[in-house]
C-alpha cells in the first residue's frame, strides 16, 4: 500500500518549529534580564556607595548625621564630617520650594481640568512642558546671575518690615549676597512645579463627571464644586504628587549649588547662605581625597536612602489613589 510507505507524518503544528522555539525562550529571558537591570542598578548603587563611604561612617559613627561641623581640613586634629547643616539646608530649601510650588501647581492643574477654555489648554500644557524641558543648570545660571541680585532689595525690604517682629522676625534676618536658602527655594519651586502639576492634573481628571455635575446641579458655584467634588476625590493623589515633588527638590543639585551660597550654616534666617547635601557633593568632590571623598559619598548614601524612601511612599500613595478612583468610576 502506498499509504503505509509514507513516513509517519509529524503531528501537524501551526507554529514554526525548531530554532524558533528556542528563539522564544531566549527572547523572553533576554527581556526579563533587561527588566531586572533596573533592580540590579538600584541594588548596586546601594552596595557600592555604602562600601565606598564606609571609612567616613566608620570614623564618625552616628555623629555623621547629628554633627553640625563639617571640617575636612582642620588646622589640628582629625577632620570632622557632620552632615546635619547640609541636611538642614536640603530640608529648608525643599520646604520653601513646596510652599510656593504646591499652590501654584494645584492652581494650574485646576485651570487645565476645570477652567481653561479649550483654545488656552494647549498653550498652558506647552508652558508646563517647556518649564520641565529647561535644564536645571540653566535655571541655576539665571538664578545666580539675574534672580539673586534682583531679589536683594526685596529681601532687604522684607527684613526692614518683618525683621522687628519677635520670633517671626528671625526668619527675615540680615541680608547678604542674595544667594541664600530663600533664593534656592524659589528656584527649586520653579523646577518642581511641572512634575507636581502633571501628576495633580492626571489625578483631577479622574474625578467622575457625575460627581461634578451633581455638585453643579445642586447649585454649587465652580469653586464649591471643586472643594466639594474634586478635592475630596483626589486628596491622596495630590499628596503623592507633592511627595514626588519633595523627592525631586531634595535631589536637585546644580541649581541649588549655584544659588544657595555655600556656607556650612544652621540658622532660622532664610536670607542667610547655607548649603544642601547634593550641592556640597558637587562643589567639593573635585578637591577631595581619602576620607573626605568617603564622607561626600556618604552624603550621597543618605540622599539616596531618603529619596528612595520618599519616592516609594509617593508611588504607593499615588497608585492606591488611582486604583480607588478607577474602582469608583460609575
Amino acid at each position, binding site marked *: 500500500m502506498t499509504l503505509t510507505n509514507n513516513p509517519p507524518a509529524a503531528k501537524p503544528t501551526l*507554529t*514554526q518549529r525548531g530554532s*524558533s522555539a528556542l528563539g*522564544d525562550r531566549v527572547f*523572553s529571558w533576554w*527581556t*526579563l534580564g*533587561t*527588566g*531586572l*537591570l*533596573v*533592580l540590579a*542598578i*538600584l541594588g*548596586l*548603587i546601594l552596595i557600592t*556607595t555604602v562600601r565606598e563611604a564606609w571609612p567616613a561612617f566608620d570614623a564618625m559613627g552616628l555623629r555623621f548625621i547629628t554633627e553640625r561641623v563639617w571640617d575636612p581640613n582642620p588646622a589640628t586634629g582629625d577632620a570632622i564630617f557632620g552632615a546635619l547643616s547640609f541636611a538642614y539646608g536640603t530640608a529648608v530649601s525643599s520646604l520653601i520650594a513646596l510652599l510656593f510650588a504646591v*499652590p*501654584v*501647581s494645584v*492652581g*494650574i492643574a485646576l*485651570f487645565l481640568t476645570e*477652567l481653561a477654555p479649550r483654545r488656552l489648554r494647549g498653550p498652558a500644557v506647552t*508652558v508646563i*512642558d*517647556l518649564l520641565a*524641558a*529647561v*535644564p*536645571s*543648570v*540653566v535655571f*541655576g*545660571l*539665571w538664578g*545666580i546671575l*539675574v534672580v539673586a541680585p534682583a531679589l536683594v532689595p526685596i529681601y532687604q525690604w522684607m527684613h526692614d518690615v518683618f525683621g522687628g517682629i519677635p520670633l517671626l522676625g528671625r526668619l527675615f534676618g540680615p541680608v547678604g549676597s542674595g544667594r541664600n536658602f530663600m533664593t534656592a527655594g524659589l528656584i527649586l519651586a520653579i523646577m518642581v512645579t511641572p512634575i507636581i502639576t502633571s501628576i495633580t492634573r492626571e489625578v483631577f481628571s479622574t474625578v467622575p463627571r457625575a460627581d461634578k455635575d451633581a455638585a453643579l446641579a445642586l447649585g454649587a*458655584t*465652580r*469653586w*464649591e464644586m471643586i472643594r466639594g467634588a474634586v478635592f475630596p476625590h483626589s486628596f491622596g493623589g495630590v499628596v503623592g504628587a507633592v511627595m*514626588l515633588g519633595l523627592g*525631586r527638590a*531634595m535631589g536637585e*543639585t*546644580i541649581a541649588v549649588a549655584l544659588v544657595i551660597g555655600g556656607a556650612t550654616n544652621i540658622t532660622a534666617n532664610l536670607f542667610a547662605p547655607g548649603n544642601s547635601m*547634593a550641592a556640597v*557633593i*558637587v562643589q567639593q*568632590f573635585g578637591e577631595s581625597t581619602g576620607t573626605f571623598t568617603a564622607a*561626600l*559619598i556618604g552624603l550621597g548614601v543618605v*540622599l*539616596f536612602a531618603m529619596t*528612595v524612601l*520618599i*519616592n516609594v511612599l*509617593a508611588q504607593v500613595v499615588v497608585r492606591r489613589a488611582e486604583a480607588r478612583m478607577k474602582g469608583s468610576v460609575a
Partner: protein
Amino acid sequence: MTLTAPPAARPAAGGPDLTRAALSGRRRFTNHLATAAIWVAVLLAVIPLALVTYTVLAKGGGVMSLSFLNEDIPNSYRREGGGMGPAIVGTLLITGMAALMAIPLGVFGAIYLNEYGKQRPLARVIRLMSDVMTGVPSIVMGLFIYISWVLLVGEQTGFAGALALACLMLPVVIRSSEEMLRLVPDELRQASMALGARKWKTTLTVVLPAAISGITSGSLLAVARAAGETAPIIIVTGIVFSPNWNLFDGSNTALPAQIFRNASQPFPAAQDRAWGAALTLIVIVLGFTIIARFISSRFAIKER
C-alpha cells in the same frame, strides 16, 4: 381658553430663584476669588519661563557666533573670546552614546513588562522600582558610576558620563515605552499569532513597529532631559579645553558642566560664555523636544 398654557413662570412667580443673581455675595465673592487665584497661578508659571527665555536669548545671543560654536574653551576663565566647541562635541557624543545604551535596553525592559510580566508580582516590583529610579538624584548616579567605573578603569572619560546618563534615561525609556506598547491593540497580536508567528516574532515584527512612533518620541524626551544633566558629568568626565572625539580615552566635557563652572566665576568673560553655552544647550534640548512632540502628534496610535 382653559387649554392655553400659562405664560412661562418667572422665578418671581413662586419657584426658587436659580439664577446667578440669587447667589449670596459671600459665595459669589469666594468663587471669583478662587477663579482669580487660579489665573494667578498660571501667570506665576508663565513669568519665570518668559524671563528665563528672554535672558538666555538676550545674553546668549550676544555672544553667539560661528566661532563660538567652533573654538576651543580658553583655559583661563578670565580670558575673553574662545568658544564652546569641545563642550558641544562632548554633549553630542556623550548623550548619543548614552542613548545607544539606554534606549534598546529600556525598550526590551518595556517589552518584558507589557508582553511577559504583565501583572505578575515581579513585573509590578520592576514597574515600581523604575518609577523610584526616575527619582534617584542625578548626583547619586554620578557617584555610583564614579565608584563602579571611573575607579575601575582609573580615569575620568566621556564614556563614564554616557554610562551615568544611560542609567538616568533607562527608567524613563522603560516607562514611556511600556505606555506605548499598552496602546497597541490586542487584535494585532492575536492576528499575528493566528498566522503562526512565534511570540518573539510577533513582538518584534508586529507590536514594536506599531508602537515605534510613541517609543521614539518618549525616548527623545528622555534624551533631551539627559542632555541637560550636569552633576554626573562634573563628577565622572573631568574637564578638557579642546575637543576630545574619543569617549574611551581621556577626560571630556559637556555644555551643562561648562555652564556650571563658568556661572560661578566673577569674570564677565566667563559669564558670557556661560550664557552662550546655555543658549546652545537650550537649542539642542528644545530641538529634541520639538522633534519628539512632532513625531508623537503626527504618527501616534490614537488612544481608544
